[in-house]
């Protein structure tokens, strides 16, 4: 007889409910494996989002037992200490259906935080030489590997309180560009991240750094932005 696992999955939109399913329990099973089993063998109408299955694309983040996680790299055995597995859509984002959320607000804030690179080099210009061990390059390196999964955004209390708050991921992205010697958009960027919904609203709760699947520390990036905006203010450049 095959051992089974009882899993509760959110069904419906904002006003949905949890529905229980019995799935086979297997060794080295990920949370995404469980969801995929339910959709392929029990209820094909279950809606969820995934792509790479190897922790690169950032599309499969969900709330697992109350905590936002990337489901493709989260083993069931790691999160079912109490014998319970409950899977819900990410918090702080509008639920479209089942486990799928609307990421529009999340990515719009990357644009509002001026998260796009502003090129300064003319066509045909030589490569900019950046020392790998330079201070600014190392600061950018520490924050650059974000996969845009929104785990930090879903775990942020300030986003919950203030829907306009840019959030850890967008501010982290801005910090990587603030440290990019080739970028020419820092005046507008620092003004964008210093407003009342920007870096100064962060309470340094550090849930983002605690839960980031890539082990980045957006709180540290936001602290860097706080310093950069204060310096800009004192120089009269804000």
């Amino acid at each position, binding site marked *: 007889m095959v051992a089974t696992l009882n899993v509760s999955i959110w069904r419906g939109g904002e006003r949905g409910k949890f529905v229980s399913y019995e799935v086979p329990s297997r060794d080295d099973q990920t949370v995404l494996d469980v969801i995929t089993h339910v959709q392929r063998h029990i209820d094909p109408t279950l809606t969820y989002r995934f792509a790479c299955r190897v922790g690169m694309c950032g599309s499969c983040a969900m709330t697992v037992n109350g905590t936002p996680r990337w489901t493709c790299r989260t083993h069931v055995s790691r999160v079912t200490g109490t014998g319970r597995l409950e899977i819900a859509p990410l918090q702080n984002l509008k639920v479209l259906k089942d486990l799928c959320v609307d990421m529009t607000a999340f990515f719009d804030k990357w644009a509002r935080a001026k998260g796009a690179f502003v090129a300064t080099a003319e066509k045909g210009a030589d490569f900019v030489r950046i020392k790998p061990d330079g201070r600014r390059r190392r600061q950018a390196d520490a924050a650059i590997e974000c996969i845009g999964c929104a785990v930090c955004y879903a775990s942020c209390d*300030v986003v919950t*309180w*203030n829907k306009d708050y840019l959030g850890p991921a967008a501010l982290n992205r801005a910090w990587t560009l603030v440290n990019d010697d080739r970028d020419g958009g820092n005046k507008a960027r*620092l*003004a*964008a991240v*210093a*407003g*009342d919904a*920007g870096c*100064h*609203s962060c309470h340094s709760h550090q849930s983002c750094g605690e839960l980031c699947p890539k082990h980045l520390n957006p709180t540290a990036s936001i602290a860097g932005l*706080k310093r950069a*905006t*204060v310096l*800009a*203010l004192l120089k009269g450049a*804000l």
Partner: protein
Amino acid sequence: MSARVDTLLWLMQRASAMILGVAVAVHLGVIVRAVRGGVTAHEIIERLQGNTAWFAFYVVFAAAVAVHGSIGLRTVLREMTPLPTRLIDSVTVILVIVLISMGWRAVAGLYGFGT
């Protein structure tokens, strides 16, 4: 405009916190010493009157309390209430003026102005 104001308020909040870190410790130390030594309010006032160092200390302390408390309350109101930003900012300005006035009035009284 908002970026400059918010950054300035953040800076003032941090600077006043640094002052309070030292000032509160000194203040509590003085209270504990006074209580354990059994001095009366009258004796404390006698020691403070005319003492420029304590006067300067409490002028800075009272200003830091007013600034830190008002900016903190502004943040709480903005995050936890639906009140309009202009109203909250007006309350903040009024509060900082009231707190500084009350604090400095008490400090002036202890120093002995007007006696």
